């Protein structure tokens, strides 16, 4: 494969990762605020269908994307209401929504199956697109892909460089402490869950109006994407940059699976497709194993210097989730 085609291939990877990028960013925000939105798989399907339907009827791409975001926000609102206001298990509510929204999208989407609606096409950025390498990679994409790039930067800056972002970090750790500092924890949780949901909702149209244009019900090949995005969020360790990297890694592996299909005939084609999951599990293993009882026991048996080394290593790998993730906040 020539450098040219390689670059184009990688550019394609960046584009095909865009929806997942939105999803993982949304989930990261939501979980940072202490609310785990497990409904992603359903949300993405529903917003993909809804976004397409709206775009088809109004013949406006932007209304389509808007609809997707709204749907995502709406589902998130239910999650927030159930978990923040009614203090029900976030996992339970999210899971139910994941299944329900999926079936709802199939039910309501039936009339739109196989229709050809509007679709986003690439808009190369003048000058920049002519730059060697980076031009091909980054500046010959479509609008939504550009938006995905920007979102990564914005979310990262927001969390690590702004005042509200600092509060957001705190909220995942100790809501009560945020509260006594004058923050309205539950209101903020609503806000971030809904904003996160809207981002997740963008993933839908990013598929149905750009990458995998149209709506084909079950055979749209979207069922499962949400779970993958969830896995990637965890892989990203609640850091938007790392999460985005995870999304790109996933898309890259998919592409690799395709280009290697006829070269490495020995590898079953499923292996690279399913690779992200073992990867996620391994990552979780690495960051968590340091906290387990038996590892500490083993460490204790080691002689001084080696013990020091491993203890350091384990502590370095450790990346614990927001302490208050999934826990409702009560003042009294």
């Amino acid at each position, binding site marked *: 494969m020539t450098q040219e085609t390689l670059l184009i291939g990688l550019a394609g990877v960046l584009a095909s990762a865009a929806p997942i990028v939105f999803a993982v960013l949304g989930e990261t925000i939501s979980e940072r605020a202490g609310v785990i939105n497990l409904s992603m798989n359903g949300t993405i399907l529903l917003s993909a269908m809804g976004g397409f339907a709206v775009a088809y009827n109004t013949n406006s791409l932007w209304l389509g994307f808007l609809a997707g975001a709204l749907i995502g926000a709406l589902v998130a609102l239910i999650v927030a209401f159930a978990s923040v206001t009614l203090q029900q298990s976030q996992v339970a509510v999210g899971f139910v929504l994941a299944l329900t929204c999926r079936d709802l999208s199939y039910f309501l989407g039936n009339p739109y199956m196989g229709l050809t609606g509007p679709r986003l096409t690439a808009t190369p950025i003048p000058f920049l697109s002519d730059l060697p390498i980076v031009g091909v990679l980054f500046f010959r994409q479509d609008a939504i892909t550009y938006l995905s790039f920007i979102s990564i930067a914005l979310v990262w800056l927001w969390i690590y460089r702004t005042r509200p972002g600092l509060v957001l970090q*705190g909220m995942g*750790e100790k809501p009560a402490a*945020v509260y*006594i500092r004058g923050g309205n924890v539950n209101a903020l949780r609503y806000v971030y869950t809904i904003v996160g949901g809207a981002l997740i909702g963008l993933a839908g149209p990013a598929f149905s109006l750009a990458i995998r244009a149209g709506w084909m019900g079950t055979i749209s090949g979207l069922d499962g994407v949400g779970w993958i995005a969830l896995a990637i969020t965890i892989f990203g360790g609640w850091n938007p940059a790392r999460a985005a990297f995870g999304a790109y890694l996933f898309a890259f592996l998919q592409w690799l699976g395709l280009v290697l299909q006829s070269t490495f005939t020995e590898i079953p084609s499923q292996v690279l497709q399913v690779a992200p999951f073992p990867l996620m599990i391994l990552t979780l293993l690495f960051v968590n194993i340091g906290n387990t009882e038996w590892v500490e*026991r083993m460490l204790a048996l080691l002689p001084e210097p080696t013990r020091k080394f491993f203890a350091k290593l384990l502590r370095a790998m450790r990346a614990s989730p927001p302490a208050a993730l999934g826990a409702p906040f009560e*003042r*009294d």
Partner: protein
Amino acid sequence: MQIELKRIHKHFGKVHANKDINLLIPSGAIQGILGENGAGKSTLMKILSGFIQADSGSEIILDGKRITIDSPADAIRFGIGMLHQDPLDFPPMRLVDNFLLGLPGGLLLNHKKAMQDFAALAREFGFALDPESYVDTLTVGERQQLEIMRLLFLGARVLILDEPTTGISAAQKEKLFATLKKLSAQSITVIFVSHKLEDVENLCGRAAVLRGGELVGELQAPYETLKFVELMFGKVVTLGEKQSLAQEALTLSLNNVALEDARIKIKHVNLDVRAGEVIGLAGMEGSGQDLFMRACAGLARTVGGRIQFKGQNLTGKSYHTFKRHGVNFLPAARLEEALVPGLNLMEHFILAEHPSGIFIDQPAGEKLAAERIQSFNIRGGPLSNIESLSGGNQQRAELALLQTPLDLILLEHPTRGLDIESVIYIWGKLKERCQQGASIIFISSDLDEILQYSDRILVFFAGQVSNPIEASQTSVEQLGQLIGGKGWADA
């Protein structure tokens, strides 16, 4: 800033935590709030700081203006800041971020400026805090200092401290008191909550006493201690006679035991505990005593040395092995570590018995529960869920779970958050165990308790462990010094 509380009421379900409290605190005063556990002190303060809201009809008047405080945000706006009983900060974050979090300002963070402000404040109060370090590396005292700095920087004119002296060293206490006096000189109103008489006596010009949610009296310095005690408990209480039950037989013996965790390192501990003996562990929180105690239970791994239990070598064995040999550990965090919310008393007792067989023997269980509840006079029935019990009753339930026979009882803060009567009752129960030959090792941040109930004392300071000190030959002062890290040469 002058504060006037009028007709403050607060209900928690059936609990009437604050009953018609009326109190006037003049500007610049250091107001003490005293009361036994559960008297309603924290509740009152949480109301004043907006953390919770009082029942309707209650009034708060600030410098003559009637105000409503619906949230901490409001309180902050009115210049009221509170240092909570358990520090509300963000352990995994840096000091400077903790300091910044919640401060007003522009959208973007300005770390440079924050650093300068931080440094300036730290200098003013002589706090030695590194803004770049992480909160989870600080002692409780230092975390308090951090909070105080933050509150003052927020412009607090009223500073509420809820039991700030639990778990800080004598040295830190002195520093804290100095700071508070300085603040009141700047006509900042300080409200100091405690159930330690001498703290109030040393610091506060005036004190209000709560009992059972009511304001039962106000006093001015100089105070007479007896009056205090009477107000707090409704009667004069005296600690029981101090008697030792130590016998000859050895239960636990440690030689050259070495321990370490993420923060603390302990080297070469040697200790022989005799049957019936009570060992008190003193030290400011996180000095290593908790690690030491968990090691004695097999909950923390030793990295060197031997732990012998009644002649058997249990080094590196798990807690369950220790338990089988007759060691029980009662953690401080009851509902988190010791009891199972959602299960009732009977189920707890059944679980503690390790019954064999497959099917639950209901009648037997009820009988067991009934007699335990009776003999530990727990306020609650076999079927009442553990979390619905009061703190003291939960503590009693915990004791009722101790297995028999038993050779070593390890207790973390066995009476924290309990009023003096519960304390006496519980120690009575524990001493019964000593009579039956059990040894006790316990941690407490209350030096009086340690002196009162231990035969020998180990003092911990930053991982150093003193040689066993005969309780009869030491004093609160000496212990205080050691805890603060002074006078270790001869210890």
